[in-house]
């Protein structure tokens, strides 16, 4: 859109910033400042009479002793939080492996091969998006109870009932995968759907087999979608605590999120909680910015 000098131009130029102002101020007050508050609490050096940290709003007052302790306790093998971090990484890793191995085939089939039933399948795949996450976990609580359908079904095969809901890592990993798979499939579907059918036809016409077409054409072209899907699922999964509480409730399966919730909502040591939030954000920051840069690039390409 070329800039043309005209009488309206100055008014227009003022109009757009004015429209953007309230939203920007809102996000500064309720997103940027709160993020700063996390740092102010994490780097606080003083406590009040309730043993709660007094936030250090002035960066000159920042003291890093608590945060340093949090970092050492997290990343040295003997640290108090080390186990929790390792568990978070392992659970997220396996849940993502399940997401890829189930999500990719489903997204691929829906985008490319579903044919007449495509609309129906897409609707069914989108449906979990609109079902409350807690409700979906609640549904599994019903099924996995000691006398629930799962144990009854196992009974038919002569397998003894299993206590699924008392601190089983297996249950937590599958619950995470179950919870986040819908969010994994959709971005992948969108990118597989955009692949030009003619490229695949060309590959077929040149005599390339299904497997090689997939490896050399489809997979590279869906790389962006796969990365998006992984980032979109990995970020909330790493900070998840509610899935764990619902399907396990045992400290033996605690993840970082559980530790953060414990310190922030149930105890006075909010500076340790804030320190863990900060550390989690730093670890995830890399993925967040990588993703933001990729999407910005993609949207620039789309508008060109």
């Amino acid at each position, binding site marked *: *859109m070329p800039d043309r000098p*005209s009488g*309206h131009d100055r008014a*227009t130029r003022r*109009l*757009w*910033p*004015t*429209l*953007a102002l309230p*939203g*920007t101020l*809102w996000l*500064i007050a*309720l*997103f940027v*400042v*709160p993020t700063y*508050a*996390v740092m102010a609490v994490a780097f606080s050096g003083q406590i009040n009479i309730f043993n709660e940290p007094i*936030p250090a709003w002035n960066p000159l007052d920042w003291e890093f002793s608590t945060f340093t302790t949090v970092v050492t306790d997290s990343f040295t093998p003997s640290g108090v939080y080390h186990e929790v971090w390792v568990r978070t990484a392992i659970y997220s890793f396996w849940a993502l492996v399940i997401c890829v191995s*189930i999500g990719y085939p*489903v997204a691929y089939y829906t985008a490319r*091969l579903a044919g007449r039933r495509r*609309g129906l399948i897409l609707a*069914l795949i*989108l*449906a*979990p998006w*609109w079902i*409350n*996450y*807690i*409700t979906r976990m*609640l549904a599994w609580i*019903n*099924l996995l109870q000691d*006398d629930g*359908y799962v144990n009854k079904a196992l009974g038919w095969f002569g397998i003894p009932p299993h206590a699924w809901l008392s601190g089983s890592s297996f249950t937590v990993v599958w619950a995470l995968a179950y919870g986040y798979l819908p969010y994994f499939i959709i971005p992948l579907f*969108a990118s597989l*759907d955009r692949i030009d059918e003619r490229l695949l036809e060309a590959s077929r016409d040149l*005599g390339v087999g*299904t*497997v090689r*077409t997939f490896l050399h054409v489809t997979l590279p072209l869906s790389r962006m979608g796969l990365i998006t899907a992984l*980032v979109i699922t990995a970020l*909330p999964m*790493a*900070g*998840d605590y*509610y899935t764990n509480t*619902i399907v396990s409730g045992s400290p033996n399966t605690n993840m970082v999120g559980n530790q*953060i*919730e414990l310190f*922030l909502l149930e105890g006075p040591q909010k500076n340790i909680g804030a320190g863990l*939030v900060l550390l*989690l*954000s730093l670890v995830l920051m890399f993925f967040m910015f990588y993703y933001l840069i990729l999407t910005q690039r993609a*949207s620039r390409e789309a*508008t060109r």
Partner: protein
Amino acid sequence: MTVTERPAVSEVSAPTRTRVPPWRNPWRRPYVLAAITWAYILWSLVPVLIAIQFSFNDGRSRSTWQGFSLQWYCCNEGSVFEDPSMLHSLRNSLILGIATVLVATPLGVALAMGLTRWRSRASGVANGIALIPLVTPEIVVGSALYLVFVNLYQFVPLGRPAMLLGHVTFSVSYVLVIVRSRLLSIGGEYEEAARDLGANSLQGIRTILLPLLMPAVFASAMIVFAASLDDFVVSQFLFGSAENETVPILLYNSVRASPTPALNALATILLVGTFLALILTVLVLKARRRGSDESALETLADWG
């Protein structure tokens, strides 16, 4: 193409065509992928359907079917409509959802128009800030808001006001993304034409831009409503005391304490509310997009 040798029966009838083993035939029907997809769909939805079924159970059990009844919905001791805390949570969720829509939609639409049409370095920065909430794990958003309300914005009490501010904060980014993609696809020509015909910028927005944006505005309002009903983490950090519980918080808190099918009934009511919003959105998008080759569902999928 090299072919693994097989005693082919069809060689006599079709001597010119090379027999292709099934895994190399690109036109083979994708039975395996179809099976995975349908198995996934069943796995993702059947537990929820069973949970809904048990909300109609004629007994206290959530794992043994004892016949159909509406006793957990209404007019019985312990049913949703006789339980003050459940009724209260429904009301809280509904009010919070509507209030969030009313604040976040205008804020986000103005922000989207401002940021898309206003080209400067400042708008780039504002755009970046507005997208970060989308990729920030909820636990970080929730704990940051909690710390800022407790320590800095003490004039905002924890409870409904804090929850409203929190929900609007994560919703503004949804509105921004949806409305902006529509704005980019409309392009600037319509406004220029309006200006050339003598309309000032405000008239241009009111008579040209807003009507063109209406489907996106409506869809984002519905998505914000659904997201607010669905939210658990931000609410849990900000709800303060029991009388402000929303439905997801109540579900979460009671799922491990001896729950009755009334809990399933409550979850079902929440689910129906969300699906009404979804159906309304799809219908409106369909009506608006008649003649376009992209289906409303796919539009929704693309926004995901």
